[in-house]
């Protein structure tokens, strides 16, 4: 398997499944949605990272707010629970001066049996410019994109994808590596990813983060190794654009520059794929001893929420090489960048830079 291989993951393999590109309902060629990392391509990701750097600077100001999206309305439609992603998107939208409607599934008419489509169309009728959608079903954001005129951002759909997580992880890696060289992140572009050895460890089968991050890292030229017990590997793992698959964490650690840990997703039944959680923690959990075995200067990352004592030992998040809280901080800047690029682009024109690749995808996808 090589990095240049066509990234086909899970349900994106189908001809009309979730994540296939949606025909824009208005405008000609302007990107309206962020549904998958693969919509962006390496160039698009680089552009998102470049714009994110500008928002990292905004976040450091005394008044970390710009008037860029005044008058726009963003709704966070989270049908599945979330702390950081929802708050991160809402903070991002507010720092862009957009108005935020926060949708709470448990206290909504979804509980009375209203369908997702009716709920979405009702909200859209109030005049909304962007939907940020989190749903337990893969493809839900793509469906929403077909129903409404607004931009749709995928904030995590089932096992499918979580594109802004992948982008903020790339932003964090680039930032840390640039700082280490005493340079600005923008100076190096995405060179720092070439040949970077990334190990993604844990419950890959149930992880949308793994799917988005494998696509992102491999598109930028990193060597990705998946580390998991056989039962937690995804079906058709041989079609993933990864360099290697391993079942032995201790063997992989010394050749790893970024150790990316995934949460054991008990709510998706991960426990049923393991003899016991303790055995999993012993074989695949990152403890202080294992963290010390990592290559020099290697980073420890985790998308959160962490199961302390399972995939990550209690002391590891506090090690200097852990950048977990930086991931969260950069999440706001990256989401500002994505919202700005989607909502700040005229709908009747093809956009500059970043999301331009998306317009091409529409032409060629035949969707």
């Amino acid at each position: 398997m090589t990095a240049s291989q066509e990234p086909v993951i899970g349900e994106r393999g189908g001809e009309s499944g979730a994540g296939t590109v949606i025909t824009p309902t208005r405008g000609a060629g302007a990107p309206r949605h962020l549904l998958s990392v693969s919509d962006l391509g390496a160039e698009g990701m680089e552009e998102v990272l470049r714009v994110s750097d500008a928002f990292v600077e905004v976040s450091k100001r005394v008044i970390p707010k710009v008037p860029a999206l005044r008058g726009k309305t963003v709704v966070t439609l989270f049908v599945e629970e979330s702390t950081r992603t929802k708050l991160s998107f809402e903070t991002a939208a507010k720092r862009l001066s957009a108005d935020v409607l926060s949708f709470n599934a448990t206290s909504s008419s979804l509980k009375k049996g209203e369908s997702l489509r009716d709920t979405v169309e009702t909200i859209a009728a109030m005049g909304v410019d962007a939907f940020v959608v989190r749903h337990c079903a893969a493809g839900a954001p793509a469906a929403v994109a077909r129903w409404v005129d607004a931009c749709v951002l995928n904030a995590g759909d089932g096992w499918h994808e979580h594109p802004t997580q992948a982008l903020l992880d790339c932003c964090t890696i680039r930032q840390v590596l640039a700082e280490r060289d005493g340079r600005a992140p923008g100076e190096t572009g995405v060179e720092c990813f070439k040949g970077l050895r990334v190990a993604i460890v844990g419950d890959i089968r149930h992880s949308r983060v793994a799917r988005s991050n494998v696509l992102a890292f491999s598109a930028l030229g990193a060597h990705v190794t998946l580390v998991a017990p056989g039962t937690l590997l995804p079906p058709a793992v041989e079609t993933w654009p990864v360099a290697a698959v391993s079942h032995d964490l201790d063997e992989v650690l010394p050749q790893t520059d970024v150790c990316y840990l995934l949460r054991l997703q008990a709510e998706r039944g991960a426990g049923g794929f393991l003899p016991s959680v303790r055995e999993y923690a012993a074989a695949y959990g990152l403890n202080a001893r294992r963290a010390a075995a990592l290559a020099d200067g290697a980073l420890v990352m985790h998308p959160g929420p962490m199961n302390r004592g399972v995939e990550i030992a209690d002391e590891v998040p506090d090690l200097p090489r852990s950048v977990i809280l930086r991931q969260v901080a950069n999440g706001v800047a990256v989401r500002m960048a994505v919202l700005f690029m989607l909502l700040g682009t005229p709908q009747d024109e093809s956009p500059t830079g970043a999301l331009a690749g998306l317009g091409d995808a529409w032409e060629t996808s035949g969707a």
Partner: protein
Amino acid sequence: MAERERRLTTPRGGVFVPRVQVLSAEDVSRAITRIAHEIVERNHGLSDVVVIGLQTGGVPLAKRLAQVLEEIEGTAVSSGTLDVAFYRDDIGIRPVLPEAITNIPEDLAGQLVVLVDDVLFTGRTVRAALNALADYGRARAVQLAVMVDRGHREIPIRPDYVGKNMPTRIDEQVDVSLDGVVLGDVVAR
């Protein structure tokens, strides 16, 4: 900045075709020296002066201006860069993306800010810059230095220091760098 942006931005942009050189590199250098002396004269020295270049066209000019100011007065002059993309009034009308990172060296409260740009045209970039500056603290005063004032203002903005007043047609383009000022046209790609 406005000039460069318009020129480079697809799909409305195109290729810049130079027609006539208006100022040589030496002329630009002399203008910067004169502006530096005007700044010192008008502000009775350089106390609290911060020179800020607008991304991207104003940045090399601001850097040079700060150097000349230091040479004249023999004191350090702080300088920075400002990208106004997020403050523009044409977001959503034409594609707007930041060109580079903003780097403002200190809290601007109580400082005297000299904004530097290459070309003053509609005035909208400067309007955006004034709003952006306000988010860094309440400056004591803001002054505007431009290499070329080409007219066609759309809002009531005027420069304090001008390298060259240059009447232009609205469809012409002005290219400014430390190598000189060139008047030309943009041809569709």
